[in-house]
């Protein structure tokens, strides 16, 4: 299954069903991530219940230094 992850068509790794699965699989620093799911902010406590579907748009964001 393919989703659009940070603007790129990306194959979802096997066994990744929810946002939570994907975040864990990728070993991203969960505390600092901001996730936008189909143009809506997905709060962390909702990640385990959001089941990813074909062509879903997922943005994985964080705060960085900026002026």
């Amino acid at each position: 299954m393919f989703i659009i992850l940070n603007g790129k068509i990306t194959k979802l790794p096997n066994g990744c069903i929810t946002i939570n699965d994907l975040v864990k699989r990728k070993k991203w620093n969960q505390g600092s991530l901001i996730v936008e799911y189909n143009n809506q902010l997905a709060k962390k406590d909702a990640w385990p219940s959001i089941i990813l579907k074909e062509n879903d748009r997922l943005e994985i964001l964080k705060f960085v230094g900026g002026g």
Partner: protein
Amino acid sequence: MIDSLVIGGREISSRLFLGTGKFPSNRLIPEVVAASGVQVVTVALRRVDLDFEEENIAAYVPGDCILMPNTSGARNAEEAVRIARLAKAAGCGNWVKIEVITDNRYLLPDNYETIKATEILAAEGFTVLPYMSPDLMAAKRLAEAGAAAVMPLGAPIGSNRGLRTKEMIRILIEEISLPVIVDAGIGRPSEAAAAMEMGAAAVLVNTAIATASDPVAMARAFGRAVEAGRTAYLAGPGETRQYASASSPLTGFLRDE
């Protein structure tokens, strides 16, 4: 004398605002904040690099600071609004620096799109501080749109060229009732002091501190310069004049008449 800067209902203790880009290490940021006394600190929102674990800038900003996300990367009002809403929803509070830029060479802001974004976000309850080209009519429109302050540039972002737009900023300070915060281009503490002496409410500095050989010492210097400039403004500088005006009495000289 009480001299408080109030923006969005918050009393701001330091008239130096800090941008957090370009520091050689994020670990310097707490020291820079402590040395300069800054309270308002900007950050940006970006996609994570999916292949690397990266650190979270917000973890380096002391908890008593006001975190002000910018909308850098936005090319129009719609994108700026999206970034602002995401940052707020992510727990950043309701302050936002609007930055809408399509000009890649000088990074000059699009005042028109900035006004549109300001109107939308102010109506949603954001405390909106728009980065702008110093134009009086645009500043008036921003005020009408609900901006909490206006932030005209002194020179292009990151250029360290100082107050190239000084006269236009002077006019904004004179004509706009909102706080005028000089953002971008300030390269030296003396230039920050000059902006404050003119009556700027605050200055936002990033590159000049972050790229100094000793960012912590430079932050301290900027903090002092901003205080000095503000104090001088309140003290009311004397007139300038073309010709000399003797400081010592012009009578009682020790010479024969």
